[in-house]
């Protein structure tokens, strides 16, 4: 698969001829000189000087078109979506000096979330959120399904790992002062992500429908109900009524595998967009020693 040739920065693109100006005596050469900056474009290009006259221009343009036909799947996609500038801007953006391992905690949280999504899909293939069968279906996953117990364990401990990572990531951004201007919005999104992640853990705990999960959930929902103003409504929403009943389990299931993960995925998208747009903070103990070129520019 050949990656598409990156488009030239604006400054380097051949300028359209000014109206009234003479046609460049050797236009193809100028083109060729610029061309050479692009990797893979040098071969066989710019062989134009020998031809010279006006009649070669259409041919040159044809050749240019032909060179731009992207090769391979990436090129096909790029020609239709125009995604490569965004991908390039994301991948080749600079990260400030002093980047250290604490900066990997956010992406590790995201990785843990993706792992949860993958193992969750496989669990959902065998899980049945009916009160009469939920426990049995989990037992089937553990005892009968190929690698079932392993995938269940991954989902279970993956949740723990994700919670630990999200707290560590939050501590990093807190102690680095990364929540300050201009990244306040990203902190807000982060706090919502934290609440949603804990909500995942809470709703997931009921699903195996064993004693532990059941009673912990009863207690948790009762605690919710004791909250002021919205507390009772929230509890009724969670239970699907005033009491634990047959629909409570499927409600928790829907919240756990559709509602909350959907929100989390969308918010991670927004979070990352802001990270890419604003850039990652530099460690707060780094000071920029005045860059000479830059201060000369300032004068």
């Amino acid at each position: 698969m050949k990656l598409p040739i990156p488009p030239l920065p604006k400054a380097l693109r051949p300028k359209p001829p000014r109206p009234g100006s003479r046609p460049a005596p050797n236009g193809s050469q100028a083109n060729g000189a610029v061309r050479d900056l692009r990797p893979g474009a040098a071969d066989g290009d710019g062989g134009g000087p020998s031809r010279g006259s006006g009649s070669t221009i259409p041919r040159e343009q044809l050749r240019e078109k032909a060179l731009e036909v992207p090769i391979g799947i990436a090129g096909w996609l790029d020609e239709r979506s125009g995604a490569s500038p965004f991908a390039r801007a994301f991948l080749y953006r600079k990260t400030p000096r002093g980047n250290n391992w604490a900066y990997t905690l956010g992406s590790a949280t995201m990785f843990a979330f993706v792992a949860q999504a993958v193992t969750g899909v496989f669990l959902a293939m065998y899980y049945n959120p009916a009160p009469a069968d939920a426990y049995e279906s989990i037992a089937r996953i553990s005892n009968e399904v190929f690698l079932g117990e392993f995938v269940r364990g991954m989902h279970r401990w993956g949740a723990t790992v994700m919670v630990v990572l999200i707290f560590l990531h939050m501590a990093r951004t807190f102690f680095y002062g990364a929540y300050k201007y201009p990244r306040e919005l990203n902190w807000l999104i982060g706090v919502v992500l934290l609440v949603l992640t804990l909500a995942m853990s809470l709703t997931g705990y009921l699903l195996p429908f064993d004693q532990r999960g059941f009673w912990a959930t009863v207690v948790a929902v009762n605690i919710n109900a004791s909250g002021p103003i919205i507390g009772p409504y929230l509890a009724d929403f969670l239970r699907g009524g005033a009491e634990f009943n047959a629909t409570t389990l499927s409600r928790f299931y829907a919240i756990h595998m559709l509602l909350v993960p959907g929100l989390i995925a969308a918010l991670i998208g927004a979070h990352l967009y802001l990270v890419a747009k604003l850039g990652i903070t530099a460690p707060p103990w780094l000071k920029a020693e005045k860059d000479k070129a830059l201060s000369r520019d300032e004068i």
Partner: protein
Amino acid sequence: MNAREKEEYLREYSILKNQGKSFFPYAVAKDGTMAAITMLVIIVMTLVLGAELGPKADATTTSFVPRPEWYFFFLFELLRVIKPPELTVLATVMVPTLWLVLLLLLPFFDRGPERHPLRRPIATLAGIATIAGMTYLTVIGALAGSPTEIVLQARGQEDGKLATASAGCLGCHRIGENGNEIGPELTDVGSRLPRQAIARTLLNPTAPMPTYQELQQKDPEKFQDIVDFLASLK
């Protein structure tokens, strides 16, 4: 931060950013390493700790002591620390909510330009205190029993279950997943018998079931709780 400080920050930041390396492949390599470590930790935990499945859920149990996931221990432990029942709501809802609101609003009340943790002593100390407090509560929560029984009983919904359990019905009858099978199963007795019939059976049972007449005379409320609970089993 005022406009000048913002401008200053952005300028300083753009210098530091220009001196840095590109995200790909440098940061990506680190992130990828970290992802691999994360995966490894999850797999090792799975292999070592497994995925146990406890006994099946049973709405009629009264003796089961529920435990949340360990990372909620600090919340449950708050219940034990804040003892008086009239303050329970404080522990369960107010403190966590307040903490969350503070967290949400953090960038709006801490707006100074300083970012170095040692030069923002209040924020840093508050952060360390929060972490220390949560760690402390988690540890004593892990060591101690569960505080959740208090909540269950204080809510008052479980009276009938408690009374039924203490009256010893489960010695002979099965309710849900619990109990023995000497007498008929009571899991859905409420749909088979009307309330009065249940009360009558408790007072004039067929042998070998003992009568609960005495209970009705000594503690009519408890008796009524049992009848209500059984009638609700459908």
